[in-house]
């Protein structure tokens, strides 16, 4: 090590880059900190919260995420879909070239782990389903629940050598839920007289607020988001795992 001259050991460019980033972060914090969280008033967010009763969703965050800014959510789901597609193409495609090699190489984990993962699996799945289904009532929703479901499958994939996820079936689930989201949006456009894309075309009386069946189309959309997120994150996990 000592033969390497000092100027090669200390990477000046990297150091400068780090310093620059640090300076930018400090600058940004000095700008952001004076804006306390209570400093904002009269924002779009406040206005949307005031109108929450219209959607009859007990969880105000959900009514913003799924209804008022549902178009953004559709976009985010699409970004995830693209990422899963990209990862699938870059990592997954080599399967044909080196068939079987990756599966055989992995040693079987011990019995405790396999059994534990098998026992945990339905519990995690149930938790995920609960969080998705109650997205319009309590904190949580399609994204969070979907990731929990994907984690459950990931656990099985890691721990259980006999467990295989059918690529075609995951892809089908992904495409069905995505198409369902867009179709629900289009139904809102077509069915209502004052139709808008993603409009809430099912009855959503305010009296029902807080019940499981309430808020019209919102829980339906969240279920689709949950399935889609679960399938996509699961597919990403699987593609990366098989790549090893």
């Amino acid at each position, binding site marked *: 090590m000592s033969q390497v001259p000092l100027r090669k050991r200390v990477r000046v460019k990297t150091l400068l880059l780090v310093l620059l980033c640090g300076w930018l972060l400090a600058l940004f914090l000095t700008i952001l900190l004076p804006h306390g969280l209570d400093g904002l008033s009269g924002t779009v967010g406040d206005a949307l919260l005031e109108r929450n009763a219209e959607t009859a969703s007990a969880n105000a965050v959900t009514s913003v995420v799924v209804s*008022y800014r549902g178009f953004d959510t559709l976009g985010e789901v699409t970004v995830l879909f693209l990422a899963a597609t990209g990862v699938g193409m*870059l990592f997954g495609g080599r399967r044909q070239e080196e068939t079987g090699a990756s599966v055989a190489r992995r040693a079987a984990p011990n019995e405790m782990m396999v059994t534990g993962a098998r026992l945990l699996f339905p519990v995690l799945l149930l938790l995920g389903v609960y969080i998705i289904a109650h997205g319009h009532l309590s904190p949580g929703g399609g994204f969070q629940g979907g990731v929990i479901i994907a984690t459950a499958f990931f656990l099985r994939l890691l721990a259980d050598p006999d467990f295989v996820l059918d690529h075609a079936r995951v892809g089908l689930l992904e*495409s069905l839920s995505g198409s369902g989201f867009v179709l629900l949006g*289009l139904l809102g456009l*077509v069915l209502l007289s004052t139709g808008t*894309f993603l409009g809430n075309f099912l009855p959503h009386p305010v009296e029902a607020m807080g019940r499981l069946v309430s808020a019209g189309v919102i829980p339906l959309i969240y279920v689709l988001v949950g399935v889609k997120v679960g399938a996509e994150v699961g597919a990403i996990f699987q593609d990366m795992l098989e790549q090893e």
Partner: protein
Amino acid sequence: MAFQLTPVWFIALPLLVAFAAPLWVRLGLLMSMLFATPLVLFGLAVSLFPAVGDAPLLETIVIAPPLGIHLHLDSASLLMVALFNLAGVLFASFLWLGDTEPHLRGRGPFVLILLLITGCTGLVLTGDLFNLYVFLEIAGVSAYALSALRRDKTALEAGLKYLIIGSVAAIFILLAIVLLYLETGQLNLAALARDFGDIPAAMQGLIGLLLLVGLGVKAELFPFNVWVPDIYRGSDPAVTSLFSGILVKAFLFVLFHLVFLLLADPAVARAWLMALGALTMLVAELVALRQQDMRRMLAYSSLGQVGLITLALGFASEATTAGALFHMVNHTLVKMLLFFVAALMLRRFLSLRLADLRGVGHAMPVATALFVLGSLAVLGLPPLSGFVSKLCILKGFAEAQAFWPIALILLAALIEAGYYFRWIKVFYDSDPAAPQCRSDDGPAYLPLVLIAGLLLLLGVAPFLIEDWFVQAARALLGRGTILESVLGVQS
């Protein structure tokens, strides 16, 4: 039941088609759907042209504009949407007819290509700042994955580089959005434009800088564009035609849409943007002179044209803006033609280096002739559309008594002529050792010939669509109209 043809179809339809990709795979309809979707949307765009001439079409999504997301379809954004979908049709027909490599034909590329076009369409249509960020991510992520499509060393390097630099640019834009929301509490573009003047001047400068850096990277402006040639070199040439033809145009449009909307007087930013444009143009053209690889040469040429468009849009007069929009359309068509030719040559010769392409004019006469036509259109020679659009820009500058941009543009055209003719000369060199394989992939030439026809048509009869560009320029510059149409709805 009311079936309306509203702007949201431009986004909802391709999303639906992309999500349903496994269905098309099973039915064997993948390529035809990739072709039909942009074609239908292009038809829809053309049919909407008369309607948006009078007033912009606003489409509310769930809740009315200042609170919710809306799509804003005016002449300028419609022009872009029509252009992107036309480019999509041409690209899909090139893939379909051209019997291209399998890595461009699967389910993955289908989804990525379709959603790249959708992301760009969303970028120009949306009237909401955060929604714009979402579409930026859609367009970005599909572009990263597309550039690594070939999965050899250069392609993976290109994909990784693009991923890193694109994400950093997106973070800059996100920071600007955070600051804008903290200062005004609004996300709607029109409401932001109304309140932007009340933000303290220093903060305005910071937000402007963050946006300029972020969008400058994405729109490939000068100090931020060193990554571009590597990515154009590493990606498949056919895919590169999408980057140069659609993606850059969308980000340029977003940059100037924001500039014209947020600043009450765009003259504040005029000097900066024009300087950036002029620098981009001159540096790129000079570097292009010494390139030995066709993709790198075309990449630098594309940067030069981006610089020219920035220069003309930055001036913000109606005549130059109309000219710049015309040049955008023109440049998209030309670069698609040139990159398609590059793709055909690459398939035949497995290399695009200058030395390896000696005498290609004898082996591939049609492709080389189309390359010559394309380069003449880039240079702006009379019977082609490049002449008309460059003339529009120059006339706009001359009317405003600004002569230094004219001198620079003509100088850049001269340098351009230098390197394009260098390549053409090598192509027609009679070399005894020239590869003499003659296996014509006939149908692949159909989209290329179509583009060449369009270039000629626009050059001979620009009056067919010249009014649209003027109308679009008025819509792009018409800050008052946008504010009134969006915020007037509320009251």
